[in-house]
């Protein structure tokens, strides 16, 4: 009896957003070539708004149909920054500063490594990295109590 893996599967036309990477990048010749340009253009506008009005923003990459090749093109266009942050909270999240100041590539994965969300955040520092006021206050109180108790 032949196994599932023995059944030959031919990718006739890889369509953007179908969920699996193109083997050998064959699907990239078609796809939405203009997508990368559009994203970069929007990032430019958002960065200007951040610089002049201080308003942060984000682009949800999961909602945009992109082939693997376009994703690589986008990464290449944005480049790498100086900061790479790994956050372990219900799985691993990676927050990498890109070469464009103010643009952060955020990937949230769950405990099984499955991608939950992917964003390009336009901000000084992603809010995700910061702590909330109440958390800081609670930590302060805990430390004060500990110091008073220990001395």
């Amino acid at each position, binding site marked *: 009896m032949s196994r599932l893996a023995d059944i030959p599967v031919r990718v006739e*036309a890889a*369509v953007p*957003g179908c969920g699996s990477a193109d083997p050998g990048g064959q699907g990239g010749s078609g796809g939405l070539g203009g997508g990368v340009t559009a994203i970069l253009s929007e990032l430019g506008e958002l960065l200007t708004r951040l610089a002049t009005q201080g308003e942060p923003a984000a682009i949800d990459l999961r909602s945009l149909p992109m082939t693997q090749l376009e994703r690589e093109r986008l990464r290449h266009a944005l480049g790498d920054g100086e900061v790479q942050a790994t956050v372990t909270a219900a799985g691993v999240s990676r927050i990498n500063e890109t070469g464009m100041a103010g643009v952060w590539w955020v990937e949230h994965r*769950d405990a*099984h490594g499955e991608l*939950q*969300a992917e964003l390009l955040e336009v901000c000084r520092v992603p809010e995700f990295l910061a*702590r*909330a006021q109440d958390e800081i206050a609670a930590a302060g109180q805990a430390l004060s109590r500990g110091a008073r108790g220990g001395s």
Partner: protein
Amino acid sequence: MTRDTAELVGEALLRHGVSRRAFIKFCTAAASALALPPGAGLAMAEQLRQRPRPSVVYLSFQECTGCLESLTRSFSPSIEQLIFDVISLDYDDTLMAAAGEAAEAARTKAMKDNFGKYVLIVDGSVPTGAGGAYCTAGGRTAVDMLREAAQGAAAIVCVGTCSSFGGIPLADPNPTSAWPVSAIVSDRPIVNISGCPPIPELITATLLQYVSTGQVPELDSHLRPKVFFGNTIHDRCYRRPFYDQGKFARTFDDEGARSGWCLYELGCKGPTTYNACATVKWNGGTSFPIESGHGCLGCSEPGFWDKGSFYAALPEASWGKAGRTAPHQVLELGAAAAAAGAVLGLAAAGVSRLHQRHSEQSGDQGDGPQGGATGG
């Protein structure tokens, strides 16, 4: 399952070892699925953290428990299970540890303490036949339990096709007189998350949006969230180019099937089915039926069990009651109609011939080889 009325969502999450950042991740993913703006996830998380845990009562009637299984056995439980840390699931007869009188007491107390504020989740259809005797728990019929629970509910979320549209119990011949929730309750906001079962992300995202904003999302004519049920599978199917080119798989193992061609001829109901399977997919985005080689069953649509064979293509005639195919019926019907037509034709010809004879006898004859009357 017990709930401290003062406990905030954030506190409950911390108690379960879920950090603020983990919760933000969860809400960000849900916001992305809900097609909300990217910042909405953070806002949702911060809002919810400061609110008391919303009370949820989950009632199950004529169901197979597939919907609850879809939710609890989801592929990435570390994220999906978080919904159970956000809400306070005060009653679910499948999941709760208590049973019998204790369980019913918990339900009654939760409904009384949170009257007007709790979210009622229902799966399974509601039978009304034999006075409702086809589904009872603790001596009470499903109809009574639903009506009672609906009175104090802020909103009702129907999970699955059975509670949304009646599902398999309502399918022909509907021996228990099963009805969807919306046929029994009409004075509460109802959200139908249909599917057999529904995609779990749809359930959690909708619940999350409702508990964080207090608003039901925009709904279609079947009361399903438009963001998930606004497009047909066909509209978003990655095999659509093959449909447009007319490349169809004819059997499940032919060359077309192996090449991933359109499954229209194998009975795919994608064009008339509204759901998010083609975009959100199943098992954490792994695949969906068409991607795995089987046509869509149309399981999120009302009456999908009675819309003909799952393997009959959409345009095929689907009059066959069990055991009788359309060709038999149409041949019988056509033959009967033709026989009737022949009788009428004979009668008409008889009348025409009489008329012809009278015309000839009275002397005014037609010029051509055929006398008057009906002709080409």
